[in-house]
């Protein structure tokens, strides 16, 4: 309860939580919001473009198109941004869930396992941590057939390559927890490895792993945006913020608005999640109070 109270006293955390919350709601209710606006993310509106100037929108913000339209295609920008939130957040969250599953599993197994299990799993973890994720992700996404659903694929690729940090933390904590005398006490009384893991280790892992997880979420969003920006992630017509920025680079002199909307949204959302993560970490781990006092 006092932890919660301290979180609420943290203004930076509150601001982050509110913005992050709004973004999550926007992503969840994307169809409803676009219906309210009377638009959808895939309909072309060539009549709104200035074909003489290469397809730059004729108007800026209008009553019909709340954020204007996309240059070149005339698709509604608001609808695309809202659906883009859905894809960006969806990919990041599903990847996070998978990462936690793999990372905690491997970390705890390495921590509780014998010397050789530990050596092999730790080496594997080090390798995935050291290897530049982006390169492998790009390479992997290149050979996958185009017909596979990109967002789900992205989540899986990000998770498969990005569980190392979680595993390392889970292993470290497990190693430290398993030398505690209360674990020995349980074993003296006859508790087996699985019971010890479930009852004594996993609850102790929750706090450090979740605080770390709070930081992976924005980092997953950055990876997704980067891959989509490079053209190997989400592809049109499916919108994501990174994909929109990718299309926007060709227009960024003619139509700065097209860069600005997804760019600003991406930055603000990321900052919000980082603030939330930072607030949680400060409260949970008093040693980590350095960032943003």
């Amino acid at each position, binding site marked *: 309860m006092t932890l919660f109270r301290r979180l609420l006293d943290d203004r930076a955390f509150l601001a982050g939580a509110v913005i992050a919350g709004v973004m999550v709601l926007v992503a969840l209710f994307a169809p409803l919001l676009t219906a309210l606006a009377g638009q959808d993310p895939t309909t072309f509106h060539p009549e709104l473009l200035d074909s003489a100037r290469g397809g730059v929108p004729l108007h800026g913000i209008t009553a019909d198109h709340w954020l204007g339209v996309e240059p070149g295609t005339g698709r509604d920008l608001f609808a695309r941004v809202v659906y883009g939130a859905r894809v960006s957040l969806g990919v990041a969250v599903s990847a996070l869930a998978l990462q936690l599953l793999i990372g905690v599993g491997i970390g705890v197994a390495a921590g509780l396992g014998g010397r050789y299990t*530990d*050596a092999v799993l*730790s*080496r594997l973890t*080090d390798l995935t941590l*050291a290897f530049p994720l982006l390169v492998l992700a790009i390479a992997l996404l290149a050979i996958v057939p185009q017909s596979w659903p990109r967002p789900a694929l992205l989540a899986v690729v990000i998770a498969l390559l990005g569980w190392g940090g979680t595993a*390392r933390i889970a*292993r*470290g904590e497990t190693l430290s927890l398993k*030398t*505690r*005398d*209360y674990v*020995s*006490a*349980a*074993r*003296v*009384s*006859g*508790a087996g490895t699985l019971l010890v893991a479930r009852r*004594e280790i996993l*609850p*102790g892992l929750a706090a450090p792993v979740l605080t770390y997880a709070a930081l992976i979420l924005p980092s997953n969003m950055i990876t997704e945006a980067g891959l989509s920006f490079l053209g190997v992630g989400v592809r049109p017509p499916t919108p994501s913020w990174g994909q929109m920025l990718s299309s926007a680079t060709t227009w960024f002199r003619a139509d700065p608005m097209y860069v600005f909307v997804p760019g600003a949204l991406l930055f603000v959302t990321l900052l919000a999640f980082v603030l939330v993560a930072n607030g949680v970490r400060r409260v949970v781990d008093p040693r980590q109070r350095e960032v943003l006092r």
Partner: protein
Amino acid sequence: MTLLSVRDLRIGFGNTQAVDGLSFDLEAGGALGIVGESGSGKSATALALLGLHGEARIEGSIDFDGLELTGASEDQLRAIRGAGIAMVFQEPLTALSPFHRVGDQIAEVYRLHTGATRKAARERAVEVLRQVHIADPERRARAYPHEFSGGMRQRALIAMALACNPRLIVADEPTTALDVTVQAQILDLLDEVRTATGAALLLISHDLGVVAGSTDDVIVMRRGAVVEAGATDQVLVTPRAAYTKDLLAAVPKPSPARVIQGGPLLRVSGVSKRFRKFTAVDDVTLDVREGETLGIVGESGAGKTTLSRMMVGLIPPDRGSITLAGADIARRRGRSVQMVFQDPMSSLNPRRTVGESIADPLRLIGEPAPRVKIEALLVRVGLAPSHYDSYPHQLSGGMRQRVGIARALAPSPRLIVCDEPVSSLDVTTQAQVLALLEDIRLERELTMVFVTHDLAVLRQIADRVVVMHDGAVAEVGDVAAVYDQPQHAYTKELLAAIPVADPIEARRRRALRRVELAGAGLSGSGLAGAGLAGTGLAGTGLDGAGLDPEPLGATQPE
């Protein structure tokens, strides 16, 4: 001549008053002890002498050789630190910089205060290292602290203290982290350098035995205030304050011998255990008889913790067998054997209530764990039924240890192995927990194995004693026999090193140790070398950082 005069010293942190009106005088060349349990304000006083408190309210007067230290500027204080007043800290493992050579660290201090040349400073470092009996000081000066054992590091720190010929040496728990034999050596060394250099000594400790033989006067502190002050011979022999009497009464005393009838319950035969290249336990054979309390004593690295963990089946032995009433210990758990652990902070899961922790062993042997039964157990170990719903962090160290005892008792085991159960407790709490263990043992006719580094505690609680040294059994026998007529050289050395609270006896033992040392032709540091040199990097937080799959600080029991 008065060197240090403290008047009405008050130190406050936030809402707490750590020291509340402390006054004392220390003569030039004299030795004063400050004794108190944790929270008495003794360490805060030491830091205040050098103005080392970051954010504290300090009132009153500290007069050092005519200079008022409470209002002194940072520059004035810096000139005093190391040169006028030198500190020796508790943790020799971490008190020296890991990045610099020992000799360089000493030379740095010397150059800073005297402006000597590099060469002169290096020579001075070697000189003081020789003065504290570091063998081969020229070579050792070029070593890094991690290449020293714990005792050697503490010697190096004392050498650093001597470098600038200070007029006062403040030693804050200088031996708490050390083994008994090393502790005796360090205390002897402090006494020796005091006589040799004429520096005064302010010795701060929780242990009456540490202060008894090394000081002229003593101050007993409790909760920031002085309880009793006077000549050491008088305060420790004929105390006036009730608290001092309690402290002295809490010092373990020999108890009358008992006759044990029982046959062997736990049989350890030919047991060995290695961790990588380190042999922790080497071919140990012993019996624990039904109904007795068997004490196992030894210094760090002796293998006693590894042995005790093998006795309860936590660690499988490499060779040999351990049987309980004829059955292999690996298959006997819960109802037959239980364990009480050393650190009451880590022996209870911080996320579960006390009641839940005690219920665990019952549930594991398939018994229901009714609240009523556990509440009765809590009452039996001196807690209240309402503690069932408490979390460990809400309890004091002594209370947590009582919970640990209740948990061990819950499944009604035949044997309880206690691994240093009172080592991390204050003296008075230690006495209470010992008394509780003894009561319960009598009441339930338990068999007990009691592992400790503290010979005095064993003498009070054990029937028979096993002395361990370098993983092997040095000596086994009835308590009275081992203590009065030790056979093994190591046992003799251990017994001679026990700190005693009687000042006259303490001085007699020091004289004995010096005679023996002179006779053996040992410089003293040779004995210290074996202890902690192999500790490596444990606890420096470096593991997991590199890509080397071999953890740098392999965690080995003991």
